[in-house]
């Protein structure tokens, strides 16, 4: 059988065709193809707590249209989403809610801290009794986007940085259960 190598842009692997022109087999690695799939269909959880959410909405809508890069629809349920974009100030009262939303998301899950408030507590509310100084005190953050608020371009850049991070990561890592059970309570 005569086999011919085919080419699809950005596909992580080699495709081979037979004489009919159909793809017969693919040579790739599990990591590469799983990460390729994951990075190109990130479904964000809509979690906007202040003015960064306005820029987030602008990024979703027609002018900037982040679906071009594979981020698709905003989900209203954490159970259907892969990435949580923390867009806005997190107060001490909101922190347990954010933690619960993060815990409800299925693995693999990613976190983007958007704007100065989510990164470090913010330029205005930093020295306040009510504000959490950086969302990384509550949940692990993958990408930090500075700005107050960040422009849609910089949000898209942050999302594409997350895609790069996903493509370079191990796709299937078996997480052992933690020995310290006090944290789960």
């Amino acid at each position, binding site marked *: 059988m005569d086999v011919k190598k085919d080419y699809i842009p950005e596909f992580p692997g080699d495709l081979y065709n037979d004489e009919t022109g159909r793809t017969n087999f693919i040579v790739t690695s599990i990591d590469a193809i799983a990460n390729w799939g994951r990075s190109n269909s990130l479904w964000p959880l809509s979690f906007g707590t202040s003015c960064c959410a306005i820029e987030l909405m602008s990024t979703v809508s027609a002018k900037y249209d982040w679906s071009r890069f594979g981020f698709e629809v905003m989900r209203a349920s954490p159970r259907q989403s892969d990435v949580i974009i923390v867009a806005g100030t997190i107060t*001490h*009262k909101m922190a347990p809610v954010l933690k619960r939303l993060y815990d409800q998301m299925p693995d693999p899950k990613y976190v983007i801290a958007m704007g100065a408030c989510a990164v470090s507590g913010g330029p205005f509310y930093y*020295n*306040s*009794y*009510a504000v959490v*100084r950086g969302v990384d005190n509550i949940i692990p953050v993958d990408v930090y986007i500075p700005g107050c608020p960040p422009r849609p371009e910089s949000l898209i850049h942050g999302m594409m940085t997350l895609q790069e991070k996903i493509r370079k990561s191990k796709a299937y890592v078996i997480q052992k259960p933690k020995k310290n059970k006090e944290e789960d309570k």
Partner: protein
Amino acid sequence: MIKEELKHYLETNFPTAKVEETFDFPLLFLTKEELIPVLTKLKDAPETRFNFLFCETAIDRNPAFEMVYHLTSTYYRHDMMVKVILEDREKPEIESVYSLWEAADLYEDEIYDMFGIRFTNHPNLRRIMLTEDWVGYPLRKDYQDDRMISL
């Protein structure tokens, strides 16, 4: 009534209370005990008919607290301000005006949350901004928070 008329009305009808004039509203100082009777009178009297409490808040004049009530009438379009000084800093307590204006419900929740002033006869006094287990009252002048950086 215009401002001067309203001030005159207050002076003649409540001779024991102190009346002042601010740049926008007539201001009536009351004691804790006469708050509810006077406000009831202001609400029900046909000359004033203050049927709307549009702002209720507190001020920490360390060591005393000042309760501030802003009243308006949707019939006559006149406004006034009522202040009550609470001397007791350890357990500041005042009668709720929820029985007169239901708008006081959330205002008084917030004042309780931020200043720790307790309202008797309030239907549901609770912390609305902060968590239930919060220690202290953040808008008090002597509130201490170790996380805050003093500039």
